[in-house]
């Protein structure tokens, strides 16, 4: 674990802040004891920092009150959903208040006729689909963390998932937002309609990682559940074969609803935990799912099977029951955490590359692993070319080891940019990848982004230290080093 050096700002902090917040909101909505604060210093990634206080709002009015208070006293506001984030987005790197949405987790409205739901940001992703299922509907974006991550986190990160290949990521499924800006004003953007006049500010806000303001209500699209699905597990002798298959399937004009890839290290970890039934001797496996109207699904599946065989598939298995399908997916969805069986810590990368470059980049990943003497597992959204190399390490070896791991990660991201890709597909920049931003954007690009931030958050209190590189922490990159 590494604690980033905080950039100390003037403003109310510590005990004085906590007592001010208790007076403002009542003590049952505030945490201030040190032993409690220590439990809000982590998320699903590797960076840590301790907040000065944690606030647990019950409603939008609490958030607005809090924001006004913090604006007056120059206190950073760091929204937090479930803390499953993989880029340190919810880490209070500059101290201040963490706002946990654990108690704002209700579905406010299921508008079945209009295919919309209005929810609070702390709602767990899967709980929405579970509630919509009796109406034959679901919420499409299905991050592998969907059992736990919140809609607020999904919107802030513009999360994707296995099934966003065909149906689009979070931004394609959000039509309205209620926000509290860092000055305490409550703003409504969009609504239930698909399009609104003027700027698409909802689109701007999705993926902003809490740096533009705080989401307090979300209106999302619900989608009719497909009539049927077919899920195929294809095992290949090598990752190259599996990668070529991905390109061949898309090249044949087929867009599966999901297409996920795992290497041998991943399947072995998963088998030890979930027992999904993946063959352990395969160099790589693909999970391919097609869905839609029942007629024609089997034909489509057969075409995919033919392509797999031509690419040397050693085993093809089609899930015949819902239980079998769930098992195949449980393996994929539990894959990151299953790495806990192989190493005490992992650092996950999120680079995106053009699909056709998969074999080349994966070979580079193997090479990096060998050079650094680090084990790297690959489990990722192959259809989107969204890589997730998981670099395993032992955090108890200290900060030097973490630095080495991050260095290895950087080599992988540099390759992603070299082949025309980007440094993050869905996990966000957070505090972890801020220093890589200039690798991808010119100073002018960055300045434009900063102007957008200033327009929403002139005080700079909305999740500071995220997305934009800060001079203190990014020594090796000057802003001019880009491109």
């Amino acid at each position, binding site marked *: 674990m590494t604690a980033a050096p905080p950039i100390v700002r003037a403003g109310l902090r510590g005990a004085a802040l906590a007592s001010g917040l208790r007076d403002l909101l009542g003590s049952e909505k505030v945490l201030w004891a040190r*032993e409690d604060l220590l439990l809000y210093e982590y998320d699903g990634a590797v960076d840590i920092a301790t907040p000065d206080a944690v606030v647990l709002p019950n409603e939008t009015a609490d958030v607005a009150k809090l924001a006004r208070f913090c604006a007056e006293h120059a206190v950073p506001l760091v929204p937090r959903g479930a803390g499953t984030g993989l880029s340190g987005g919810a880490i209070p790197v500059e101290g201040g208040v963490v706002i946990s949405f654990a108690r704002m987790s209700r579905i406010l409205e299921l508008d079945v006729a209009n295919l919309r739901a209005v929810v609070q940001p702390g709602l767990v992703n899967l709980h929405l689909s579970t509630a919509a299922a009796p109406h034959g509907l679901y919420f499409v974006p299905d991050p592998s963390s969907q059992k736990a991550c919140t809609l607020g986190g999904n919107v802030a990160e513009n999360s994707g998932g296995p099934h966003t290949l065909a149906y689009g990521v979070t931004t394609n499924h959000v039509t309205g937002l209620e926000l509290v800006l860092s000055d305490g004003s409550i703003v409504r953007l969009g609504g239930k309609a698909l399009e609104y006049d003027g700027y698409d500010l909802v689109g701007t806000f999705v993926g902003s990682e809490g740096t533009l303001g705080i989401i307090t209500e979300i209106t999302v699209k619900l989608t009719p559940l497909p009539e049927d699905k077919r899920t195929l597990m294809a095992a290949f002798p090598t990752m190259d074969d599996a990668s070529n298959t991905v390109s061949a399937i898309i090249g044949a004009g087929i867009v599966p609803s999901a297409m996920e890839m795992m290497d041998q290290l991943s399947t072995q970890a998963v088998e030890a935990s979930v027992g999904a039934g993946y063959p352990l001797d395969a160099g790589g496996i693909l999970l391919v799912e097609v869905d839609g109207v029942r007629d024609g699904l089997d034909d489509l599946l057969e075409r995919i099977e033919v392509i797999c065989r031509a690419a040397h598939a050693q085993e093809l298995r089609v899930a015949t029951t819902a239980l079998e399908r769930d098992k195949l997916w449980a393996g994929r969805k539990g894959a990151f955490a299953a790495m*806990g069986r192989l190493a*005490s810590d992992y650092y996950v990368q999120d680079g995106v590359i053009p699909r056709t470059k998969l074999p080349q980049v994966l070979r580079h990943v193997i090479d990096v692993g060998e050079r650094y003497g680090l084990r790297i597992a690959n489990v990722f959204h192959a259809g989107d070319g969204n890589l997730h190399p998981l670099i395993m390490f032992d955090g108890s070896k200290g900060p030097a080891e973490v630095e080495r791991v991050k260095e290895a990660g950087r080599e992988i991201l540099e390759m992603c940019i070299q082949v025309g890709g980007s440094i993050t597909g869905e996990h966000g920049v957070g505090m972890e990848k801020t220093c890589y931003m200039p690798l991808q954007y010119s100073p002018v690009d960055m300045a434009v982004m900063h102007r957008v931030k200033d327009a929403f958050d002139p005080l700079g209190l909305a999740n500071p230290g995220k997305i934009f590189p800060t001079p203190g922490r990014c020594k090796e990159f000057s802003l001019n080093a880009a491109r």
Partner: protein
Amino acid sequence: MIRRRGFPNADAPLPELISRCVHCGLCLPTCPTFAELGVEMDSPRGRIRLMKNVWDGRLDADSAAFADHMAKCLDCRACETACPSGVSFGKLMEAARSQVLAARRPNLAEALLRRAAFRGLITSPARLALFARFGYLSKRLGARTILRAIGMKRLAELLDLVPEKAPTSAALPARFAAIGTKRGTVALFTGCVMRAAFADTNAATARVLARNGIEVLVPATQTCCGALHAHAGERGGARELAKRNISGLEPLAVDAFIVNAAGCGANLKEYGWLLKDDQEWAERGERFSARVKDASEYLAAVGLAERPGPVRATAAYDDPCHLIHGQKISAQPRALLAAIPELRLVPLAEADWCCGSAGTYNVTQPELAARLGHRKAQHIVRSGAEMVVTANPGCQMQIEAALRREGARVPVVHLMDLLDRAYASR
């Protein structure tokens, strides 16, 4: 204040178990205390972090905060089922509680109460039977109202748990002969709470097994399994009981030790771990644990020799935590229920959630226990079931009490009692 780093003794939660947790958070929504309280300290990930913080010298093992969040845990192990990383949460929690006990000097009243409970009551079937009878009687006599009136709310709430039916503690015969072709021989573990208040259920279990060609021995050489001790962190007491059971039961030439209380079963299956620091006993414990089977697990594995008679009812099955999460048994009880003709099984929302019983949780955390009981009762009422089936005496008592408080007249029956009744109706 002098800061002591780490934990007081060797029963501490092991760092290699803690480091299995990759703080992914996937377990959070399955945790009943996180759902109710919404704070990280009362989530599985948070509790593991608290243990880590003690190791790292950032929190004292004898601090009130550490004790409080460990005590609020139900030890339901739902997080263990949810965790893809294979964190053995139950082992961590029991270890952490033992350290709370070792690190804190409990006040005198607490100490006396614990002693009375763990030394006297639980390990002595006779005394426990007496307590159960007293509870039943005093309830009949309206003692609850009186206790409430004089402000002894906690005792009153405890009495709420005393089951509706009159407790029976008639001794079981030492042997039930197999009926029809003999297919196996087992020893029945009768348990402490079970034996005292639920002797009927033990007899029912034996009859159901016998009906299916299984000879059932009821050995006198057994004692309390020590589950309540282990959950409360009383490792020493738990180990003593484990050794007595191992010595008493291991010589028997039986195919399995059958348990019908999920809490006991989960604990009996972990004797190897409990005794891990003593090589000889650890091995004997492992071997013993491998022979322990829940009644439903065993029956589903050998298959029913005879079809039960019909039960005309709509039932919901509620998974005891220590069966579904502790022993990963959830399909077998449902399969047995499905074998009963005319019994209609309806789905129960959050069937895999803790009802709030959780060993001594009712006593230590009455408010949270009541909230969870209420949540369970509401789901049961909404399910439309005319009867709830479960497989653990603690759950049975808690759910009955919760339903009663809700004013719902839905009986709660043990799976083995229901099967017994079904066979009797043939």
